[in-house]
Every structure is written in structure tokens, then in C-alpha cells.
């Protein structure tokens, strides 16, 4: 080894070595730069789409914009369901210097409860400072006015408005309109299953009952979108695009709010229901169940105290018009008469001796008439007019249960009518098969006899009764009952300009056209001899017109030509030979009063069915008859007004 001090360093060799090594490192540097560049190329060129999407997902938030719910009008354009602004007070903490002070000063203008304050302060801790936090969720109009005046003194304090459903007629319309209320978990699951989650992103309330539920899709509308740019804190910086929501469709009902009012007044203090139908198209003119309740209570979430109040023994939550099931009693006699004629077991001229009771050939039991001494010789017309039980015991026995079941099913008993609300009972139309399935018992002749006066196992809803009567007055033509009269379709702008020139058409000046509801017509009911219809209808006419008819008192002196039939339904079976004394039995066991009516006798426009539970004195003729009368009086008093709306077009035509 050479000592470095003495050796002469080979500078040239060292420089060459260094240059080589430097060159190698330079190659290394170039390779590394290529690696970096390749990686950036991979990100910016090959994955450009992916990262652009993710970048946009970062910065672009799509805010759903809730569509306004469609309004609901009655047939004369009276608003039944509207959207009213509800005001809330919110504070944006970022814009307030001293929250405590502001709360203090606000508290001097309107009352702020301690729990509201606590809730607010709690929310404030968990929320971004630029987001408004609600302090008071519902302000009264007075409070809104008070705060609005001095709002300029409170930077960062805002009054927010959002629309809530409001039913101006309250309990008058609840059993038909139903109500909307806050979407709950079950609703969410259902919305999800129906694939509507996207459309309900911003929606708070959903139809829970009645028409609001049935026509939810029509009334709801289509959600709108606001695309905004946000920063990493979620603060909205600007709006990029806006797709307005499509408001829900407004709808007009066949319902007449004035008839509803009359129905309510007529049923005051009693449990019962009224249904009025236009037999020409199945449109429901009135449907009222008493007692009722205010649907508005549910819109903002009902308190448990209020809810308890609604669960009393009068059960206001039950829609008696569609879910109350009653024995049809004597109101069914005209239809049974029709069945008898059609089955050829009787004729209009055939006479029957009524001794005051009916006895099966080999039986001991006496089926009593309401007249102890009997009606004597009666024909079909008189039997209907005076409501002779013996005649119909005999008739039912002769027609037989199988035939009766089949015929009555044709009038819609034992099944739902298909009305456009979901709350409907099908009642019970008894038959051999039904009794076997229900009680596992054979059908007895005695059962058939009871059917003859609409008692026994047979139960119907007032709506079914009205519907059956409609079929009768239509002589077999069946329209499904419905509330919907028309949907309001927005006109396009050029169409609007076009119609504005036509001055004569009043309706066309409105920015929408009415698209009429398509009435569902079912296969008609056919009789062997269509003259039988007239026989029965005439008997019902006589019931009202003849002084000894059970409906005479109720319609005495009416300006229109009505026809009808009363019924008094036994709630509990009574042993034979005991007299009925309302004062001696408990209130809930008293008789039900029933009545069906239609008018005018020629070309009927309105059919009414009334059911009143547990009347103290009298039967259907004296209790339910006058209710039907009041409805009809109102209908015909206002007829010129009403006639503006013609019956709807039938689907089959």
C-alpha cells in the first residue's frame, strides 16, 4: 500500500470514476422522474374520469327541493285541503356576536321556554356555525308579527316558513280526506319498496288516511333539485343549477261541503253515518261519520293527551260510513222483494196472510212481526211500504239462502265497494259456505228467515247500502263509488294563450284544465224481467208517499219527489214474545235506525243512506228518515248551483 502523503493521486482516474458514477446517478434521476411522471400520467390521464367524478362528488351537493302538495277542492271549488305556511324561528350562530344576549333580548319580545333554549344550545354545539338552528318550531301569527318588526335588530335571527297541510273544515272532512302526517319508519320502508325514495328525499309528510293516502302519488308531485357547490365544511358557496319541483296535482272531489255540514248538524249528539251518492256516476256527494275528529291534530303530530281523548267510547276515529257494519234491517226488503220476483216465488199481485208472525212448517218458533196483530192480507208493494216482516220471512224462506246470497252479492254486499279510500269494511253477506267457514255449522232454515228482515248474520256498511240503492235506482247499472271528480292538469303556455282568446268559456280562463275522473263501470246486474225494477222502485215511492208508508213522516211536504225505505235494526237478539223497551236495556244494546232514500223518483240524482246507532225512541223512519230528508232538502235547494257539474263520463263508453 502506498502512503497517501507520498503517492501522487491519479486525478484523471478519479475524475473518470466520479464522472461514471455521476452518469449512473443521472440515469437514476431520469428514471425516477419518469416513474413520477408515469404515476402522474396514470392519475391525470388514465384515471381522469374517476377522479373528476370524485372531485365533483366532493364539491357538488344535490339538495332536494320539496314539491308543493296538490290542493283538494270540493265539487263547487271550495278548498278542503290547503298548504299553509308554518313559521319557525332560527338563529345562525356565525352571524350572532353574543348568543346568550340575543336569546335574552328575543325572550323579551316573545316567550322562549327554557327547554327550547336548552335544546337550541345543545343543537348549536353539534352543528356547523353557518347553519341555521331552530329555536322555536311553530310561531303564532302574532309572534311572527312581533318579531318581524324588530328583526333588523337581530342579525343572524331568521324566520323560516315551510308549508304544512291544513284542513279548513276540520272534523267535517277527516273521514273522507284523511290527513297527512310525518313520515315514519314504516312509511319509509314502504316508500323504499315502491322505489319512490328518490322522490321523497325532501318530503316530511305523507298521506296516512283517506284520500290523502289513496291519492298520495297524485298529490305529492315530483321532487326538484338544486345543485350547489360546497366547501369542505359543507358551506354552500353558489348554486350551479336548479330543477324546479313539479307540484302535486290539485284535485276536485265530488263531495259537497255544504251537504257535509248538513250531515254533521243532523247527526249532532248521535253516533252514525250519512252517505250520499250521485247514482248517475257513483260520485260521493256526502260522506260523514259522527262523531268525527280534526285531522289537523295529526298534521303536526298529535299529543298523547289529545290522542287519548279520541279513544273514548264513542270512537270518533272509526269511519262509520265505510267501516261501521250494521244489520241492514228492513232497508233490505226492496232488494229481497226483487230477488223474490226474479226467483218467481212471488208476483206483485200475490197475497199473503199475515197473522202477526211466521212459523216454519215443522217448527215451533214464531218469527214475529212488528205489529203484534199482523198486517192481514198483504201484497209485495204493501209489504215494502209498511215493512211487513211476515211477508219477507216467507219470501226469504221460499227464495232460499243460496239464491239470496247470489243476488245480494250482485248488489255489492259482502265485498268492498272499491271506493277510493282504503278504509273500508266488506261487511258480511251470509251464505252456507260463509257459516261453515265462520262457525263450522250448517245453515238452518231459521237463519234464512232472519235474513228476510235483514237481521241475523247479515251486516252492511252505510256506503254499501247507498251503493246497493244506486244499483237499484240505476236498474242494474253499477258504478264504483268514488270521491274524485277531476284532476287539474296544468296547461302548457301556448295552450293558455290560445284559450285566453275564447271569452265565453269561463273555466278555460284558468291555467289548468279539468281532466275528469274515469268512472269504473262494473258489469250490470240483469233481471229475468226488467219490469220488476219498476215494481220495487214504485213500492219505495209509495213508502214515502203513502200516509201509511214508513217513510211518509220523514218526507212529508218535500218539494221534490223522493222514494225510500226505513229500517230498524236489532243490535241484540231478543227471545220471542218479549217486547222491546228502549228504556229498559243498556244504551249500546238499543236499536239502530237505518234509512235509504233517493230522489227525484224519475231520473234520480241523489241516493242517501243513513245509519244511526242505538236510538232511544222510534226506529229508522222517525230517526234516520229526517236526516236523509235534510240532506236532500239541501241538495235540491242548491240544485241550480250544483247542476253546473254534470255527471262524469263513464269509462266503458
Amino acid at each position, binding site marked *: 500500500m502506498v502512503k*497517501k502523503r507520498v*503517492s501522487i*493521486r*491519479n*486525478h*484523471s*482516474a*478519479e*475524475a473518470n*470514476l*466520479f*464522472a461514471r*458514477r*455521476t452518469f449512473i*446517478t*443521472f440515469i437514476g*434521476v*431520469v428514471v*425516477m*422522474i419518469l*416513474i*413520477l*411522471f408515469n*404515476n*402522474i*400520467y396514470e*392519475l*391525470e*390521464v388514465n*384515471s*381522469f374520469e*374517476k*377522479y*373528476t367524478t*370524485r*372531485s*365533483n362528488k*366532493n*364539491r357538488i351537493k344535490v339538495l332536494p327541493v320539496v314539491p308543493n302538495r296538490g290542493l283538494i277542492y270540493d265539487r263547487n271549488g271550495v278548498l278542503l285541503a290547503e298548504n299553509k305556511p308554518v313559521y319557525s324561528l332560527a338563529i345562525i350562530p356565525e352571524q350572532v356576536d353574543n348568543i346568550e344576549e340575543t336569546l335574552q333580548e328575543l325572550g323579551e319580545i316573545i316567550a322562549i321556554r327554557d327547554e327550547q333554549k336548552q335544546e337550541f344550545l345543545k343543537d348549536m354545539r353539534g352543528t356547523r356555525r353557518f347553519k341555521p338552528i331552530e329555536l322555536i318550531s311553530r310561531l303564532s301569527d302574532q309572534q311572527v308579527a312581533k318579531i318581524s318588526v324588530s328583526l333588523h335588530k337581530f342579525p343572524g335571527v331568521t324566520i323560516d316558513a315551510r308549508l304544512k297541510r291544513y284542513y279548513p273544515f276540520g272534523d267535517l272532512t277527516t273521514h273522507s280526506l284523511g290527513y297527512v302526517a310525518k313520515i315514519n319508519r314504516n312509511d319509509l320502508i314502504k316508500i323504499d319498496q315502491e322505489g319512490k325514495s328518490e322522490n321523497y328525499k325532501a318530503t316530511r309528510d305523507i298521506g296516512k288516511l283517506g284520500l290523502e293516502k289513496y291519492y298520495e302519488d297524485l298529490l305529492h308531485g315530483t321532487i326538484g333539485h338544486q345543485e350547489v*357547490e*360546497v*366547501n*369542505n*365544511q359543507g358551506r354552500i*358557496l353558489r348554486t350551479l343549477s336548479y330543477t324546479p319541483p313539479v307540484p302535486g296535482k290539485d284535485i276536485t272531489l265530488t263531495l259537497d261541503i255544504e251537504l257535509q255540514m248538513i250531515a254533521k248538524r243532523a247527526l249532532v249528539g248521535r253516533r252514525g253515518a250519512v252517505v250520499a251518492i250521485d247514482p248517475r256516476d257513483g260520485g260521493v256527494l256526502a260522506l260523514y261519520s259522527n262523531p268525527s275528529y280534526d285531522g289537523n291534530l295529526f298534521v303536526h303530530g298529535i299529543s298523547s293527551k289529545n290522542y287519548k281523548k279520541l279513544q273514548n267510547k264513542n270512537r270518533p276515529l272509526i269511519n262509520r260510513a265505510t267501516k261501521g257494519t250494521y244489520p241492514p234491517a228492513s232497508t233490505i226488503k226492496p232488494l229481497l222483494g226483487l230477488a223474490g220476483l226474479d226467483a218467481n216465488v212471488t208476483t206483485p199481485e200475490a197475497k199473503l196472510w199475515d197473522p202477526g208472525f211466521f212459523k216454519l212448517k215443522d217448527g215451533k218458533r214464531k218469527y214475529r212481526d212488528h205489529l203484534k196483530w199482523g198486517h192481514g192480507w198483504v201484497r209485495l208493494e204493501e209489504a215494502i211500504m209498511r215493512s211487513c216482516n211476515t211477508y219477507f220471512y216467507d219470501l226469504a224462506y221460499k227464495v232460499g239462502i243460496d239464491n239470496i246470497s247470489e243476488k245480494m252479492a250482485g248488489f255489492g254486499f259482502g265485498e268492498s265497494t272499491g271506493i277510493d279510500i282504503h278504509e273500508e269494511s266488506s261487511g258480511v253477506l251470509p251464505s252456507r259456505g260463509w257459516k261453515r267457514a265462520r262457525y263450522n255449522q250448517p245453515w238452518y232454515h231459521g237463519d234464512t228467515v232472519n235474513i228476510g228482515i235483514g237481521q241475523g248474520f247479515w251486516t252492511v256498511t252505510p256506503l254499501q247500502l247507498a251503493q246497493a240503492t244506486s244499483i237499484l235506482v240505476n236498474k242494474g247499472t253499477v258504478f264504483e263509488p268514488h270521491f274524485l271528480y277531476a284532476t287539474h292538469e296544468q296547461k302548457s303556455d301556448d295552450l293558455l294563450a290560445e284559450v285566453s282568446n275564447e271569452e265565453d268559456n269561463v273555466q278555460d280562463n284558468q291555467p289548468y284544465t279539468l281532466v275528469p275522473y274515469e268512472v269504473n263501470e262494473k258489469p250490470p246486474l240483469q233481471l229475468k224481467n226488467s219490469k220488476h225494477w219498476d215494481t220495487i222502485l214504485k213500492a219505495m215511492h209509495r213508502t214515502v208517499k203513502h200516509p201509511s208508508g214508513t217513510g211518509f213522516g220523514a218526507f212529508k211536504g218535500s218539494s221534490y219527489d223522493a222514494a225510500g225505505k226505513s229500517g230498524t235494526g236489532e243490535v241484540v237478539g231478543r227471545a220471542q214474545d218479549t217486547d222491546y223497551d228502549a228504556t229498559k236495556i243498556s244504551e249500546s244494546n238499543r236499536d239502530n235506525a237505518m234509512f235509504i232514500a233517493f230522489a227525484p223518483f224519475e231520473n234520480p240524482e241523489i241516493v242517501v243512506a243513513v245509519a244511526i246507532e242505538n236510538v232511544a225512541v222510534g226506529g229508522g223512519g222517525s230517526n234516520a228518515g229526517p236526516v236523509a230528508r235534510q240532506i236532500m232538502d239541501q241538495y235540491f235547494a242548491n240544485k241550480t248551483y250544483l247542476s253546473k257539474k254534470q255527471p262524469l263520463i263513464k269509462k266503458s263508453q
Partner: protein
Amino acid sequence: MNMRYTGKDQAKKRTLLEILHIDWPLLLSLLLLMTVGLFVIYSAGGQDMALVTRQVVRLGIGLAVMFVVAQIPPSFYQRWAVIVFLIGLLMLLAVLLFGHVGKGAQRWLDLGFMKFQPSEIMKLFMPMTIAWYISQYDLPSKTKHVIIAFAIVMLPTLMIAKQPDLGTSLLIASSGIFVLFLSGASWRLIGISFGMVSAFLPILWMFLMRDYQKQRVLTFLNPEEDPLGTGYHIIQSKIAIGSGGVNGKGWLQGTQSQLEFLPERHTDFIFAVFSEEFGLMGVLGLLLIYLLIVMRGLWIAVKAQDAFTKLLAGSLTLTFFVYVFVNIGMVSGLLPVVGVPLPLVSYGGTSMVTLMASFGVLMAISTHRRLLT
């Protein structure tokens, strides 16, 4: 190769830049890079002019330091390197014993009138010391010398890693190792040390790395696992770069940076802002500027007159490139996040001044020529 330094050259009138000891290609490249940096800082800092002004002041100081350092002949460093290195070691020891804790790491020494980061000194004096040591002997070095030199490298490296400052210890270690490589350490030795480093990695993982450092490595390996936690930085950075595309979103138009989705925008992750706004074309330009600086540095090294200056110039240049590679690599998801700034573009002080000082040394090497006899 000594033709340039004949009397004919000497007779040539020296230019002003030569008198000032300024290497103009290097200076121009640096100024270009700084200008780009200022524009990106303006964008990344939410268009805050105050931020830009502060960076301009820092760059001014950096340029001044570079200028001063350039005036000192390299022989001066050759003489003083070891002493400063030893002082630096003592200060590192002091940091470990009574250092100031900031951001969870002990890096600062509080001298009463100022806070001081001794590891920065090592960035300069580590390559100087190793170059001094190696250049005393014939090249290529003997294995014995290489091993001794390697030990000298590891001592401060481990001390800095213990602070813990993984980024800086990495830079300091590589600055020393580059000297060894350039001095012609045998490939066999290089192979062996590679093997040793690989063997050392598990020890590093188990005994030396802090939890947050381990987390960084784990996050690097799978950033999507914890997109809102530790992986957030890398994911947002990759989104920023990727969404830039070929031409970029345009200056001040980068949504990832302007809307603050990108963390550490004007410091460590400034490259992501740059790529988002200027795209692949911008990146290409930026990489070319860096390549230009590296090429000039290596050229100075090759042209340097003796082993010490050659090794020093080469090492400083390559260390500068390590900055670039580690920063861009970590921001684009190639490497774990180790907190190395993008040199001369990232906003920030200490390391920039050290970098400028090393460019001063490069200029000194390039301009102080001794006559060879």
C-alpha cells in the same frame, strides 16, 4: 480537461456574475421555480397576498444566504466541516435531552433569542464531512473507510430519526450515502449495505418508529380503508391531481384546493394544487425545471476541480432531487407521507434557507477556481 483554465482564459475579462460568484443557469432555474411557487402559493392560500409577501421575504433571505455562501471558497468548508459537524452532533444530543417539543416531535433547540433546528445544519455538513473524510484517501475508497464513513452517517441519522423526524433523517442519510456512492464504493459493498438496511427495517418498525409514523405507512399502503381519518390526505391529494387532467382546471380554478378539500395545501401538498390547476402539461414543465437544476448541479460536480468539491456538489444536487422525488411521490400516492416539502415551491422557512445555502455552496464550487499546476 484543464484547457479552459489556461492563461488565455485568465486573460478574459471576468463577467459581473463571475465576480459575484453566481452560476447563472442555476440562478435562472431557481428564480423560475420560485416564481412558479409564488403563483401556486397565492392560489393554494386562498388568494391571500400576505402569504405570498411572507414567502417573497423568505425567498429574499434565502437568495441572500445563497449569495453570501457563494462568496466563501470551498477550501474553507473543507477545513471547518468536521468541527461544525461535531458541534451539530452535540446540538442534536441537546435536542434529544432538552429540546423544545412542537407538533409532537422534539426538533427545536431554544437558544433564548431564537429557536433553532440543528438537523438543518446536518443537511449541509453531513455531505461535507463525509466528502472531507473520503477525499483524504485515494478513490475508490477502501472498504474500511466506507464502513467508517457509513457509521458517521448513521450517528446523526438515528439521532434525528429519534426526534422523531423521519423525513429529515432520510435526507441526511442519503446525502452521506450519495457521497459514498459517488466516491466509487464498490458495488459489492452497496449490495451488502442494501441487505443490511432491509434487515434493519423490521427493527426500525418495532423499536424506532412512533405510532403516528407507523400509521402513516399503513395509511400509505391502503388509504381507502380510512377515508375520513388518516387516509384523507392521500385520497384528497390523488383526487386533486387526477381531476386536473391533461390541461388542468386553470390557475385559481382548482376545486379541491379552493374549496379546501385538500389539506396542507400551501405546504407539503402544494404539488397537488399545482397538478390540479395546471394538469399534466404543468407537471411536465415543473419536472423539467427540476431536471434542469439537477443537470446543472451534476455538471458543476463533474467540472469541479478536486474530489472534495466533486463529491460535495454531487451529493447536494442529488439530495435536492431526493426532496423532489419524496415529495411528489408522497403527494401522488407512491410513497408514504413523510413531511418533506416540495423544494422552493412549498411555503415555509427553515428548510428552504438550508436549501438555498446548499445552492450557495454549489455556486461557490462552480465559481471559485484554483489554478492547477
